[in-house]
């Protein structure tokens, strides 16, 4: 059989969804959900193997082009096609999704409330999430983007904490409100000009006038700013994360946030490069605000889940800086930061869940000194926190370093602006350890909290939990030790994106005239004369 012609991506998307519909048929005599979770885990593992195999055998990492392409006509009158494909931007995120979701299924072992529905939703999400990264049709993208909201909504509102309904409602209002902008912008782009097309490739080649681009860019930016999230549209996230259970948490932090970053690069950067040149300084400012503002709020937060949620926001700020750097290194760092945070965020949220299962409180003041009773969780929590604060030898450090060096050497900004942004972003480097280490200190260090130790049974991590964290730490440390492991997968693609952007940038510089001066934030490259 020629494996190259096999519809890999469609299979990977549809297999878990189809399999999820058989969950009602899985026998469960004890009523505790044991066979169901095993069924879901096996499906997850099969799908993960399929993903890895498709990547390994049919994906050429040296090419920037779309690969594993499938395109079937769906609604011909609208030119709507079921078209999927993967390039350097999608592939790492598809692999990440497959990996994290499978681990999330394993992390769902303690779920006993309505297990059938829970695992059904997880498997539906599995396919839906991969579809978001794989589809190459705008309308289809919008549909899967919306589709993936419903399982999250249900997962939040049924299995969440005390304020779960509020959190779930807020989540869906924010995201759905944002996605309206996607729809409007996508329709406008599709119907603009002589031809009507929803195909992303064709849209990239359409020549939109600047004002149109700016409007569409702003629309997309609002939608993706909710998802990523970007200040000030981030407030749904602490609520949603504060209420979610550990596996849902892993998906929210590990994958859903990445959709924002992915779509930002895919649509705003790739399709609207001229607008991106104008918007880039705004992205930088928003990125820095994200980093510092969220780090400070995280420091003040007394609720563990919300603390980590804010830390996610802070880390996503680096993605924005990388995207706006106009350098290969910065763009590469942005993608790396997304994957890296996917792994680190998922591991931290899983550990928060594991700690909560034992202490039954998320309030830091009610914890303290539990390190003695739970040395393994302590060790794993420390390792993951160190990864999160960008310790060298872990993936987060490489990503932040690449973004820093990439932006510092960018020739698209004048020196003063660049210095301010770099210095402010680097302040985040001081703030991150402050809140993460304070958190560790308040949970694990110091004398034991009597009230807690007497009322709760604090057992150490079980092998399943150690396995999940170990699985996440292996790629985190692997990438940290040898970043090319991951960067070579997408290098060709990010270089292509940057080249396109730089063309747009230099055209904008050339075209600059006095009338445009006030909306033209750039000055001539400051680096050229000194870098020789």
């Amino acid at each position, binding site marked *: 059989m020629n494996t190259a012609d096999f519809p890999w991506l469609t299979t990977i998307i549809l297999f878990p969804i189809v399999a999820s519909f058989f969950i009602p048929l899985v026998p469960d005599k004890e009523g505790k959900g044991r066979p169901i979770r095993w069924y879901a885990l096996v499906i997850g593992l099969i799908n993960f193997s399929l993903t890895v195999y498709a990547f390994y055998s049919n994906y050429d990492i040296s090419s920037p082009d779309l690969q594993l392409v499938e395109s079937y006509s769906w609604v011909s009158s609208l030119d709507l096609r079921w078209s999927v494909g993967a390039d350097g931007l999608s592939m790492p995120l598809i692999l990440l999704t497959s990996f994290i979701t499978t681990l999330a299924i394993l992390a769902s072992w303690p779920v006993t409330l309505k297990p059938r529905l829970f695992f059904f939703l997880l498997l539906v999400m599995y396919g839906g999430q991969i579809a978001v990264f794989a589809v190459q049709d705008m309308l289809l993208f919008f549909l899967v983007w919306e589709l993936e909201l419903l399982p999250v909504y249900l997962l939040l509102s049924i299995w969440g904490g005390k304020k779960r309904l509020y959190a779930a*409602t807020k989540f869906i209002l924010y995201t*759905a409100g944002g996605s309206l902008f996607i729809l409007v912008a996508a329709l406008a782009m599709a119907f603009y000009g002589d031809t009507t097309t929803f195909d992303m490739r064709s849209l990239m080649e359409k020549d939109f006038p600047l004002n149109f681009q700016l409007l569409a860019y702003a629309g997309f930016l609002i939608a993706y700013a909710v998802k990523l999230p970007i200040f000030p549209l981030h407030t749904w996230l602490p609520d949603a994360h504060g209420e979610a259970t550990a596996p849902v948490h892993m998906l929210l932090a590990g994958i859903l946030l990445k959709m924002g970053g992915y779509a930002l690069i895919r649509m705003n950067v790739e399709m609207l490069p001229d607008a991106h040149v104008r918007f880039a300084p705004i992205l930088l400012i928003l990125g820095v605000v994200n980093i510092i503002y969220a780090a400070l709020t995280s420091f003040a937060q007394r609720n563990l889940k919300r603390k980590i949620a804010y830390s996610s926001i802070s880390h996503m700020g680096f993605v924005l800086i990388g995207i706006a750097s106009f350098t290969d290194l910065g763009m590469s760092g942005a993608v790396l930061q997304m994957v890296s945070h996917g792994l680190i965020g998922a591991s931290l949220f899983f550990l928060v869940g594991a700690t909560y299962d034992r202490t039954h409180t998320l309030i830091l003041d009610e914890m303290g000194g539990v390190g003695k009773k739970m040395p393994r969780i302590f*060790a794993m929590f420390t390792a993951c926190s160190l990864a999160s604060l960008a310790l060298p030898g872990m993936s987060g450090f490489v990503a932040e370093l690449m973004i*820093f060096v990439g932006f510092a050497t960018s020739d698209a900004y004048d020196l003063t602006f660049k210095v301010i942004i770099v210095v402010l972003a680097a302040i985040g480097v001081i703030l991150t350890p402050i809140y993460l280490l304070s958190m560790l200190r308040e949970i694990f260090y*110091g004398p034991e909290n009597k009230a807690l130790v007497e009322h709760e049974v604090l057992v150490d991590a079980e092998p399943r939990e150690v396995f999940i964290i170990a699985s996440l730490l292996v790629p985190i440390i692997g990438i940290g030790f040898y970043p090319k492991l991951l960067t070579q997968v997408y290098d060709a693609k990010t270089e292509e994106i940057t080249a396109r952007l730089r063309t747009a940038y230099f055209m904008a510089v050339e075209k600059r005239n006095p009338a445009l001066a006030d909306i033209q934030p750039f000055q001539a490259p400051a680096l050229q004369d000194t870098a020789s």
Partner: protein
Amino acid sequence: METLYQYAWLIPVLPLAGAMIIGLGLISYNQSVNRLRTASSVLIVSLIGTAMVLSFGLLWSQVQGHAPYVQSFDWAAAGDFHLRMGFVIDHLTALMLVIVTSVAFLVMIYTDGYMAHDPGYVRFYAYLSLFSSSMLGLVISPNLVQVYIFWELVGMCSYLLIGFWYDRKAAADACQKAFVTNRVGDFGLLLGILALYWATGSFEFDVIGDRLQDLVQSGALSGGMAALFAILVFLGPVAKSAQFPLHVWLPDAMEGPTPISALIHAATMVAAGVFLIARMFPVFEGIPVAMDVIAWTGGVTAFLGASIAITQNDIKKGLAYSTMSQLGYMVMAMGVGAYTAGLFHLMTHAFFKAMLFLGSGSVIHGMEAVVGHDPVLAQDMRLMGGLRKYMPITAITFLIGTLAICGIPPFAGFWSKDEILGQTFNANPALWLVGWLTAGITAFYMFRMYFSTFEGSFRGNDSAIKQQLKIEQLQRMGLAFGPGAMNPKELTAEFPTSDAPDNSPDAHDSHHSSTPHESPLAMWLPLVILAIPSMLVGLIGTPFANYFEAFIHAPGKVMETAAEFEWSEFLIMGGSSVGIALIGITLATLMYRTQKIDPGAIADKIQPLYQLSLNKWYIDDIYDAVFVKGSRRLARQVLEVDVRIVDGLVNLTGFVTLVTGEALKYLESGKVQFYALIVFGAVLGLVLVSGIT
């Protein structure tokens, strides 16, 4: 020989492998690995031993005149950017490798005795090995980025080791303080690296130096900018080597077990700052402003550390401030261009200070037999005295270390400190004066320490002093708990074991001994071995036959072969520093040995100065009020803004939009989620309808 160089990467990798094996074992089979104490420690010690043998081989080969060896591979790349990692073996690296591996090796042997009864024995070895690996990785780094990577990793190991006894509140606070303070320095270092890369397009030390010179000379880069870049990089060493104003973490770091105080916070990691200045010397030496900043930072730190050390009663804290002061000497040496002298002092200091710390550990170990496992009691010199009778080996080695640090010839410290002072005098007499005064203070506080610990009569069973120390501790905690909890009695009832969990009544019962005892072989053997270099290693760098300078000298500098040696100059300089040291020793003898002068009376007379020194110049209090409390307040305010204003405004905007639209009725019926369904349904409907037609 070539094979030896090809396998030089094993030096950091061997301890790393050891740490990983033990670490994985601890995570997966905690109890069984914890039972394999001997096997674990033998594994770790033999791995570092192998690394030590390799290092000595490399040093020998370098002394024989082997050319520097560089090997690297492509680590990260994007576009035309390539970042290479690897290792370089040159004179400086070879020397540092030998210092680090030999001190680490001895400290690990010592650990077997010191930590023998600790439940975290195996974990401690894993951390030690991890640290050794990072430190060795740091010294073989061929470029700034790799230095930064290992720089952070040694910081992490330091964090883990300071917080080793994580159930002690003081240790928990200290490890976080150490990490965050170091991150402030790293913030500067990172910005400096970025700026230098922006300006020169390179991370290599000498390439940066050359290009920066060219840029400044051609006027493409202003001298002020170059100085700023250099000072930013220097912020890294300021934090790591505990220089003013980022020195505050080092004394607190003494909360960690004593072996790591010796290895990390005296001999190796804190010297990494000096090492980095040496590596960056090609960059710094062309920028006079930066050199002045470095020199004065070092000078101020040397004096500050010594002035605080005078009044410390905790033996480890005293040594910590002394370390800070000695690091100040090294940094000052670098700043005045005395490259060789600074590194020479780094080496001699590594040996004698490691020995002094291990000696203090031995003392604490002995004291614990009498007063129990409570750092407040076991480390306080007011409870010691007369220990020479009970611990003769510790006493003699400690005395050797004391003489070495005071700069009494022919002990190691004399030669290195004298060389620094001599060169400083030529460069900047004002700084020399600071260094010279500091030498006197050093001699005073070190002999104060020696006399109150080892001479006189043993005070360990004096319950009045114990009571007083406990009250002092509670008062310190009381302050930390706020004005509401000032009554020490109340605190005793509330927090009987808060700072010393081992100090339970049962633990007390197990200490029958009323006199301390000499430490076991594993502990005194390293002391004796370290005493040899502390006495003799200075002889390789005497001014009349300076083999050390022939081996280590500033890159690019041709050795002035006939650096004509003048007896008169040597005698004046050496005589003056020995002279002031003798004055310090005499004073200490009068006050603490023969008790001719009452130190309490002097302290009463100069109360403000005494309080200034005792309270560490109030620097910690100022930082606490400004930075710690300030950042907390700021963070709380930002969170308030986030919860009340940002969230509210965005919700309001969304709400207004909804009210004006159709969705209002869904809001009212409480089923807002249908809003999303409607949007989704509408699009799906559109697709289907257009599909049918």
